[in-house]
């Protein structure tokens, strides 16, 4: 016989914690363990997050005075571009999927690792190299196009390293695609015995839906950035109006990626929230099937709404109508999710631990962000508030109020599992409340001034808006405190925190049945799953037993 035999790998002996598999730097940089790669991602996106945060801190400081405080026009443009590019591509898009998705997805489905472990490591290297390259080029040479790279500004007029910055984002895109392929293949091929599709935790469904968006949207971004670079470099006319080219084509391609990218940011957050609510309300998630269908339909319909970014750009009025309608449609599954979360909480025995506070913050902020999204989906209102702070406030409610809150909820929920340590809950709750207050102080005034006409991307403005800008900047300080605080108490817990047992929250789910921190192979034996997720309540039984 040739070598196509079904030879089984020998049963590996249960090892120590994945953290003790090697302490050298090389053991981390060459690892193919999904848990360690998750940690590598977590460290890198944290660094990028604070660089992006520093950039916007300077921007907010500049906006204290109507005539600007200390920046030139050029510097201001470069700072908000730096903030946008870092936060969108190097923090929000990879945030939850590459850290918690990498760490938890294989464990939640009872697998030893992701489908293609080496690809997973390569994807981290692409990410770090691309992102670092872009950040260096922006800081050293400057890019002032905004994160959207609109033509013809980016191709004909902008100063600075547009091509280099775009190249870095292009490389990071490959990382996104590789991660998406890995997660989809893992979910399809490596589920433990008995782990049927209807028994998957909603977090797994959310990461799956996100991955679908990643692999189908990201290549279009890659192409649009490539075309911008080619046109800028060689003067080959593709979007150049002087040769009959159409800048709107760029916007179509760009938003074909960048609107679904918003769902790349928010779908994993929705998955996290479902897990956290079920655990701290001690209830099964209300309407599991509806939750799954709404995740998947957001992923699909999310691809059909991009034109709402172009209502005033010269798109045909008929296309405006269609995109407006579809944008209302995509709100329906999001609303279903919000109602189901509320129904999950209703009648539950709610425990106000830190992850729950972050999750509840998500619920309120995401709802406001989503509802203001409906304002923007309606053409007449959008025409009024296009390119104002209203839009800025809206998408920050979704991306920061939604995604970042959920990121922190996930961080506090799974921290004991990931590190094996407990953090001081008092400080964590304090951080959660500070973040909620700081966020609202920063962004609620922006709705008001945007509605009154304050345009985005200007650092000189009429004096009537100053009061809102001052409140907003003050809120930013509070927000900064809320972001730095976890570094301190989580760092403290690594050294002095109490050891966590397998399941400190008494949560359901396969990841809680193994050690904290988990061994390299994740489980002592491959688990066999016998019931659905979220078995909370008095008749709760462990979800799996080791056969």
């Amino acid at each position, binding site marked *: 016989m040739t070598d*196509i035999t079904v030879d089984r790998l020998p049963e590996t002996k249960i090892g120590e914690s994945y953290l003790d598999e090697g302490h050298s730097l090389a053991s981390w940089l060459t690892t193919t363990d999904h848990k360690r790669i998750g940690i590598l991602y977590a460290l890198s996106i944290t660094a990028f997050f604070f660089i992006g945060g520093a950039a916007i801190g300077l921007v907010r400081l500049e906006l204290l005075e109507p005539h600007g405080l200390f920046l030139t026009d050029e510097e201001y443009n470069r700072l908000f571009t730096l903030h946008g590019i870092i936060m969108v591509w190097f923090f929000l898009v990879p945030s939850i999927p590459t850290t918690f998705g990498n760490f938890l997805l294989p464990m939640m489905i009872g697998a030893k*690792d992701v489908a293609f472990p080496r690809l997973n490591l390569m994807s981290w290297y692409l990410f770090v190299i691309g992102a670092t390259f872009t950040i260096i080029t922006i800081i050293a040479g400057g890019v002032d196009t905004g994160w959207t790279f609109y033509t013809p500004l980016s191709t004909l007029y902008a100063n600075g390293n547009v091509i280099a910055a775009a190249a870095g984002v292009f490389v990071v895109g490959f990382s996104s695609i590789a991660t998406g392929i890995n997660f989809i*293949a893992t979910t399809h091929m490596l589920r433990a015995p008995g782990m049927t599709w209807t028994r998957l935790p909603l977090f797994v469904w959310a990461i799956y839906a996100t991955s679908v968006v990643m692999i189908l949207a990201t290549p279009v971004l890659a192409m649009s950035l490539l075309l911008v670079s*080619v046109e800028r470099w*060689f003067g*080959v006319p*593709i979007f150049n109006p002087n040769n009959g080219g*159409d800048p709107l084509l760029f916007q179509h391609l760009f938003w074909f990626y960048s609107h679904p990218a918003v769902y790349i940011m928010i779908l994993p957050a929705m998955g996290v929230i479902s897990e956290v609510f079920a655990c701290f309300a001690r209830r099964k998630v209300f309407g599991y099937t509806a939750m799954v269908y709404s995740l998947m339909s957001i992923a699909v319909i999310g691809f059909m709404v991009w034109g709402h970014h172009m209502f005033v750009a010269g798109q045909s009025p008929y296309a405006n109508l269609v995109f407006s309608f579809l944008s209302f449609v995509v709100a329906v599954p999001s609303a279903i999710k919000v109602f189901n979360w509320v129904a999950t909480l209703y009648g539950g025995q709610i425990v106000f631990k830190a992850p729950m506070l972050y999750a509840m913050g998500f619920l309120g902020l995401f709802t406001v962000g989503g509802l203001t999204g409906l304002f923007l989906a309606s053409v007449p209102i959008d025409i009024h508030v296009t390119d104002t702070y209203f839009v800025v406030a809206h998408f920050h409610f979704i991306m920061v109020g939604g995604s970042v809150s959920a990121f922190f909820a996930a961080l506090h929920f799974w921290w004991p599992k990931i590190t094996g340590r407990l953090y001081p809950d008092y400080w964590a709750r304090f951080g959660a409340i500070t973040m909620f207050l700081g966020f609202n102080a920063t962004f609620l005034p922006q709705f008001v001034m945007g509605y009154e006409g304050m345009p985005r991307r200007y650092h000189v403005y009429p004096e009537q808006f100053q009061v809102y800008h001052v409140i907003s900047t003050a809120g930013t300080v509070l927000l900064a405190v809320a972001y730095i605080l976890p570094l301190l108490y989580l760092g403290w817990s690594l050294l002095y925190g109490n050891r966590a047992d397998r399941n400190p929250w008494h949560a359901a789910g396969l990841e809680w049945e193994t050690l904290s921190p988990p061994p390299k192979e994740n489980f002592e034996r491959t688990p066999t799953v016998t019931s659905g997720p979220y078995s909370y309540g008095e008749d709760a039984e462990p979800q799996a037993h080791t056969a």
Partner: protein
Amino acid sequence: MSDAPALLHEPWPSVERQREGVSFGLWLFIATEILFFSGLFLGYTLYRNLYPDAFKIAARETEVFFGTLNTAILMTSSLTMAVAARGATRGFRKMTLWCLAVTITLGCTFLLCKGLEYHDDIDNRLVPGPDFKLKPPETQIFWAFYWVMTGIHAVHVTVGIGVVTTVTLLIYRRRIPLATAAVEAMALYWHLVDVIWIFLLPLLYLMGRS
């Protein structure tokens, strides 16, 4: 058999499952590639619809001879690649290696022809810019797409040649087993590159000939 390089890798439970998984992963990548090229095809279609006459004038200047020859070369390389993928799973070591070698050679021939064609195009002042030969200005859009589409395709062929050469050498030196899922995976990729060219042929070479 025991000292042969391992066919099964973590975290897969069985070789069959792993093979299916690798093919699935590659198909997901193909979906990605379709969307990658869709931006180009979309742009081409919209501009052709806006400027049909300019596109016909411009398309007449491409070299059908090279376009057709290269199509035939790629199709033949797809044939040898398909046979290699079938032979590898059935243990035809020698035949598989020969087929892969022919595939690599044909891939290089394709690039050579492409290079000769590019040389002619540059000589004919068909690079968009101030020196461009044709009028009206919209013809430059066609040629912009010509260069970008064929250029990106050529990059794909080059990557393909690199991957196929590496895997072939590894199999030849018995560093990885003949039945590795990598052969099937790179065959899928190679066929995809062929399919993309098949659509470039009518758009870039056959338009405006009648």
